[in-house]
């Protein structure tokens, strides 16, 4: 069975997208002292680190950085029939009154973000929570949208959007793997 693949974002595209989103975040909330970046594991945290570094190189300010594991907040835990691995979250600063930019690689159904919102408010009461994603592929199942988007990509629900990042996967690339709606 052949699976047509298409490169959605090259390494250069990803680098430019991260740089642009970093500029947009700063333009949106000029008070950098209240800004914090929180990545959703396990690729959002990698992108969050890159965004923090980009803001530091553009503005000379290093904003607080954290990571969230949302496994315990999933809405399908009792449906999937096994316990997925829980990783540690790392948020060693207070989110109270911060503008927290949550970062994930792909925005799809919105359920991960719903879980991440629940997890984040257990740490305190941010002044605002914003969302930055590398790819928005549509097909939302919840009323959730992103504030900062690297690339909007039309997909079919069965398609697979695969994000590869150097820190985890050894290379930077986003590819679309088209799948039959019903696989045999």
């Amino acid at each position: 069975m052949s699976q047509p693949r298409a490169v959605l974002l090259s390494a250069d595209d990803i680098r430019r997208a991260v740089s642009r989103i970093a500029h947009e975040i700063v333009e949106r909330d000029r008070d950098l002292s209240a800004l914090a970046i929180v990545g959703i594991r396990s690729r959002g945290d990698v992108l969050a680190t890159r965004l923090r570094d980009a803001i530091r190189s553009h503005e000379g300010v290093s904003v607080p950085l954290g990571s969230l594991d949302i496994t315990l907040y999933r809405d399908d835990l009792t449906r999937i029939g096994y316990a997925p691995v829980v990783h540690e979250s790392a948020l060693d600063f207070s989110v109270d009154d911060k503008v927290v930019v949550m970062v994930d690689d792909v925005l799809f159904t919105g359920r991960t973000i719903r879980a991440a919102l629940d997890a984040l408010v257990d740490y305190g009461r941010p002044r605002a929570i914003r969302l930055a994603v590398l790819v928005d592929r549509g097909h939302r199942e919840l009323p959730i949208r992103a504030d900062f988007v690297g690339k909007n990509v039309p997909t079919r629900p069965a398609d697979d959007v695969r994000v590869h990042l150097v820190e985890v996967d050894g290379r930077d690339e986003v590819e679309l793997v088209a799948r039959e709606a019903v696989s045999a």
Partner: protein
Amino acid sequence: MTLTKTPAAAALRWARRHVLDIDDWSRAEIEAVLETAGAMVEILGRPVRKAPPLRGKTVILFFAEASTRTRVSFELAAKALSADVTTITSSGSSVEKGETLLDTVRTLQALGGDVVVMRHASSGAPYFVAERSDAPVINAGDGWHAHPTQGLLDAYTLRAALGDLHEKRIVIVGDVLHSRVARSDIHTLVPLGARITLSGPPTLMPLAWRRGELPPCVTYEPDLDRALDGAHGVIALRLQKERQEGGLLPSLREYSHVWGLTASRVARMRPDAPVMHPGPMNEGVEIDAAVAHGARSLVETQVTNGVAVRMALLYLLVGTPLQEERP
């Protein structure tokens, strides 16, 4: 990352339905619990010490033997995962009226709990319940047999203090014969690479072990000073005072003199080697107050880690679908 996809990467297929003993666990299973416990420790440090994975689930605590800290620890663990908790204790329940274990099991079944946590004075009682229960059973201590969550929390605490336990030598001192804690500690620490030196009166050591027929990586050294020399850590067991009446001990004073953990004895270990105790402590008997509350003592850390380890197990077991839920 999306929730509708099955996460193929690193998906732990937790196959164990009950937690009855730890003697048949693989190292990978022990590691899985300890890693999950690490994430739970982080939750316990948050402003809101609660996460939702067991929302709508009921955890039944069935404690047919006196226990405060283990019961409270499981209760906090269940509540931190948003479960509802019902407690059945021996005093004040029909167990006192002579209700049999089988009757109790039928009641537990009818109550429809999602997990049963049980402590019982009879070794093997949790197996009896597990065979007859739709819900997963966690052994919170049965007779002299096993106390798996204590073994796991001791392993977690030692790893947090010492790092990798490979070739680390841990002394367990006291009434090993009657100690389910000692047995579960051995079964948890040895697969992680630790070596165990047992110490204590020969009368409180299993006969075969006293004769030298010991499990792998375990030795017996009746002289506590020699056992402690250069050790990486020590776990003191609670001396059950009723043992003296059974003629197994000459006197508590003599026991304390020969096998009590004093500051000078503790100093024989490596620098910063931790001191642990499952509690409740008989201060002045198996451990001096200065040691129990001293700089090396991890007794309070054990209590905190106990909640995290129990959260980890509750979380892993709830991923096991109940029989009636299977299609």
